[in-house]
């Protein structure tokens, strides 16, 4: 089958069914509130949000692949660009810019232009340690793991914590190649 060209994030987003971002934002708020009630400790909530994001990521990646026609990325630089320009756009309707590459090309930052998770949100004093958007870092981590990349994804800057932008750091730890099940030395 002739390879199909990858589709742009804008085109995909325009062609998928969309919902009012407020439903999404408010539902996420309800989730965070539930976790704060159940777990009480902000650190535990941060961990749980990341885990929930991971659970979503391992499922969401297939839809990303199916709709975007992206084939295996040549290198991590391409991966980051694809997340910023296609992934975030087709699911959340936002774009991000990729910056701050390290020399090895394994660490970079995604600066989000917008963030539908945080509309109307202000962190109360009791929750100052909360990484409200941790679900998003989990999603990226889970999605990449399913295509053989082990990564560390962390928030460097968070506007809810008083910073001037939403900056997500992507760090490639290990590229895990597909296992050939019949290795002779096993």
């Amino acid at each position, binding site marked *: *089958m002739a390879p199909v060209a990858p589709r742009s994030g804008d085109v995909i987003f325009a062609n998928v069914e969309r919902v009012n971002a407020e439903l999404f934002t408010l539902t996420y708020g309800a989730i965070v509130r539930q976790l704060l009630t159940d777990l009480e400790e902000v650190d535990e909530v941060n961990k749980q949000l990341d885990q929930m994001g991971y659970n979503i990521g*391992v*499922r*969401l*990646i*297939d*839809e990303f*692949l*199916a*709709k975007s026609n992206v*084939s*295996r990325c040549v290198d991590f630089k391409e991966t980051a660009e694809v997340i910023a320009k296609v992934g975030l756009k087709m699911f959340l309707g936002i774009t991000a810019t990729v910056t701050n590459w390290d020399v090895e090309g394994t660490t970079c930052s995604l600066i989000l232009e917008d963030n539908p998770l945080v509309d109307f949100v202000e962190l109360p004093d009791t929750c100052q340690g909360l990484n409200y958007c941790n679900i998003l870092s989990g999603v990226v981590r889970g999605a990449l793991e*399913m*295509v053989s990349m082990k990564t560390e994804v962390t928030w460097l800057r968070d506007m809810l914590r008083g910073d001037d932008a939403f900056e997500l750091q992507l760090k490639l730890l290990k590229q895990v190649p*597909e296992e*050939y*099940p*019949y290795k002779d030395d096993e």
Partner: protein
Amino acid sequence: MAAIYSLYIINKSGGLIFCKDYGSAGKMDTNDSLRLASLWHSMHAISQQLSPVNGCAGIELLQADTFDLHCFQSLTGTKFFVVCEPGTLHMESLLKYIYELYTDYVLKNPFYEMEMPIRCELFDINLSQAVQKDRVALLGR
């Protein structure tokens, strides 16, 4: 318009998670289906190693006297393959479409556990619609 005999979905470990017979002459029992899935998973992996070309993604089409077998493997390792009458058209499109149905009605189902057998009513319903002959022709557009 030729006929589809059966459809299989294998998870990335080679486990059979979905199997549907479309009234082919020889129906297989569960154990045979499991064995077939496991065998195909192995053959697919071996073919990638045997390939003289670098970066081979595995078998996409197997043509035999009495059937064709089309296979699609996602980058996540899940394989979708269909066994059909020789010469049946539009099977690649069908497999890609079934992949999308999987991303909708299986992966978005909170009651579906990853890698486990698929038991999602909405997936079955939409799949049946997709496999109907006139629908398959439309996919070839």
